[in-house]
């Protein structure tokens, strides 16, 4: 029974789950939830995901939602030998991984997501940008990436010496901001550039970057 993703192909979080499926060679069936038509707010979908966002998954009857936990679940269930999540018995490596996952969530995700909304989604819908907000978000995101530059000068990946989900989680927004919004976020930061070049050229990301 294939792993089912209830999602929308271009959605950030749907692509985040599809990326990890590709990394682990887990075949999946994408069951479309049409966001422009509001299907994510329909009662049948809300039974799967009470907050009304995509994606949700069904793995042979086991259902869950939230893209990053789904990614962790995929690694736990299908990633035998995978180092995308450290062995829980290694408490120190796990702590550094959790620190990096928390950094992505608390420092990167919100400003990056809102910038993408302002610079790419709003123009697509014919809505005006909020220039003041864009300025503030750029200042925030740039200050965070300055810290990333320092961290990545001392270690190859955000969690330490090994690539983990913490690095991969950044891909949807960072790809969107650099390739679609055409922001220059990485070229002036050699370590961020090195790190982004590596994670974005992975075949798994290339396979889903423009649609899960």
């Amino acid at each position, binding site marked *: 029974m294939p792993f089912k993703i209830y999602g929308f192909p271009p959605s950030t979080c749907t692509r985040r789950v599809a990326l990890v499926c590709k990394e682990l060679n887990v075949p999946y069936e994408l069951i479309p939830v049409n966001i422009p038509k509001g299907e994510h707010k329909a009662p049948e979908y809300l039974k799967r995901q*009470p*907050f*009304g966002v995509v994606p949700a998954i069904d793995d042979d009857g*086991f259902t*869950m*939602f*939230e893209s*990053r*936990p789904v990614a*962790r*679940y995929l690694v*736990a*269930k299908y990633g035998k030998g995978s180092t995308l999540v450290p062995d*829980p018995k290694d*408490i*120190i490596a*796990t*702590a*550094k991984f*959790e*620190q990096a*996952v*928390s*950094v992505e*969530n*608390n*420092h990167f995700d*919100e400003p990056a997501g809102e910038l993408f909304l302002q610079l790419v989604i709003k123009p697509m819908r014919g809505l005006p940008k909020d220039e003041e907000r864009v300025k503030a978000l750029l200042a925030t995101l740039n200050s*965070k990436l300055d*810290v990333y530059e*320092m*961290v990545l000068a001392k270690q190859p990946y955000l969690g330490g010496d090994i690539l983990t989900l913490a690095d991969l989680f950044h891909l949807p927004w960072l790809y969107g901001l650099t390739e679609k919004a055409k922001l220059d976020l990485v070229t002036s930061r050699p370590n961020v550039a090195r790190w982004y070049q590596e994670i974005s050229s992975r075949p798994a990301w290339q396979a889903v970057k423009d649609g899960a």
Partner: protein
Amino acid sequence: MAILKLYSSSVTACTRRTATVLHELKIPFELIEVDVLSGAHKTPEFLKFQPFGQVPYIDDDGFILYESRAICRYVAAKHPRSGLIPTDPKANALFEQATSIELTNFEPSAGKAGLPFYLKKLGWRDDLTDVPANLEILDKKLDAYEAILSKQRYLAGDTLTLADLFHLPYAGFVSLGSDIMTRPNRPNVARWYNELVSRPAWLAYQDGVKTTTEY
């Protein structure tokens, strides 16, 4: 073995989150006060340990770690019998789902509504401009929480986990100025919330986190 050192302000939200979990696990710790009002968390010496210039961070016998939820996960991992992080694969997946629900569906609006109430109570800042809009967002999120909590006792299932405890600071702060967590139309949210805020680990630091060596 040196006592765990918690570098932070005694009153900030993330410090309260960390200290609550330390207390739940009965881990002795020393609070080393960082004077955030005078910018002590932005000095070069501080940034060496926490490069984003935020509190808290810990020094656990030489191991440095920041991000309050990562710290909580680390100490819970050292006490697996607490059950605060389930290990059964499906229970763990649902635990992770619950921690993500807190991050994506609670913290953004509860933080932006709760923090202004808290800062006003501390006498640090009086600006409630952002509160109404964020309470409106939080109200809709809590309807989804009601749907979840009507089927199970806690956010990850029927046992308490870190995912529930992570809500404490902002759930408590929002309640300083709103009854949104205890409205009668959401009896399960109210039940869950009231249980959380009556835990001794939360009540212990109502007047600020302090060094705790005995439980």
